[in-house]
């Protein structure tokens, strides 16, 4: 009943991690494995795609905090898109939006990246 996969796209210094299914404590290994492939690929920018994430619980947010810790150590930046308004609110409550800015869709996340580079 593990209903979560990360679809990873690598393109130069950009990595897009699409979180598909339920982001919970059970997702941790898959998130970290995918993350480590962004390291080997020397990606500097990571986009988290939540448009296929159905459910995120507090343990799933802790998985993202672990990811954030490692990304900061590796000097990679994290951005996100596709969260529902409810989960944007939850991420804001926790403070995550300050560290992982959220964009409405992939195009605007990519545009923000262009601008900052």
């Amino acid at each position, binding site marked *: 009943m593990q209903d979560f996969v990360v679809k990873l796209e690598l393109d130069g210094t950009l990595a897009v991690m699409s979180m598909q299914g339920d982001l*919970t*404590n059970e997702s941790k290994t898959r998130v970290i494995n995918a993350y480590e492939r962004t390291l080997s690929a020397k990606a500097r920018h990571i986009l988290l795609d939540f448009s296929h994430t159905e459910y995120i619980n507090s343990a799933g947010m*802790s998985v993202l905090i672990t990811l954030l810790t490692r990304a900061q150590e590796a000097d990679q930046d994290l951005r996100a898109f596709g969260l529902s308004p409810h989960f944007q609110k*939850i991420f804001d409550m*926790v*403070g995550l939006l300050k560290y992982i800015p959220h964009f409405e869709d992939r195009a605007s996340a990519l545009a923000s990246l262009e601008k900052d580079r």
Partner: protein
Amino acid sequence: MRIVDKQHDLPSPVSVVIPSRPGFEKVAMDAASSYGKLVGLSAERRDDLRTAVAEACINAMEHGNRFSDETGVELILRVRKTTLVIDIVDFGSGFRHPVKRPVLKKKISGEEPARGWGLFLIERLVDEVEFTRTKQKKHVTRLKMHL
């Protein structure tokens, strides 16, 4: 299975029992959301309720019932006057209040474990939360949403 609650012609409570196994909190969450809809909660507040119920169930499974599958977590849904009252019942002994407020910065830096957001979210998403122990040695997390 017979339940009585006759004041104000309010409906009898709805009860949902799930095994203490990760994933089943979603059944409790969906049932709570459906009940919330029936009693007139808006879509936005139902989303808040969903997250609060899921987190309370996971805590009941993990800290209360230590993930023992055959020990159920019970969710009891009722309306009292103009308040939706939801009890999440486990067989544990509860915990000391208040719990230390999580600090994101410390979690990122590793000073605190990454976990520990459940109660923080529950408290912000519902109108009232109470934790009590019953005479039957059960622990109850009570969530209230004003209708």
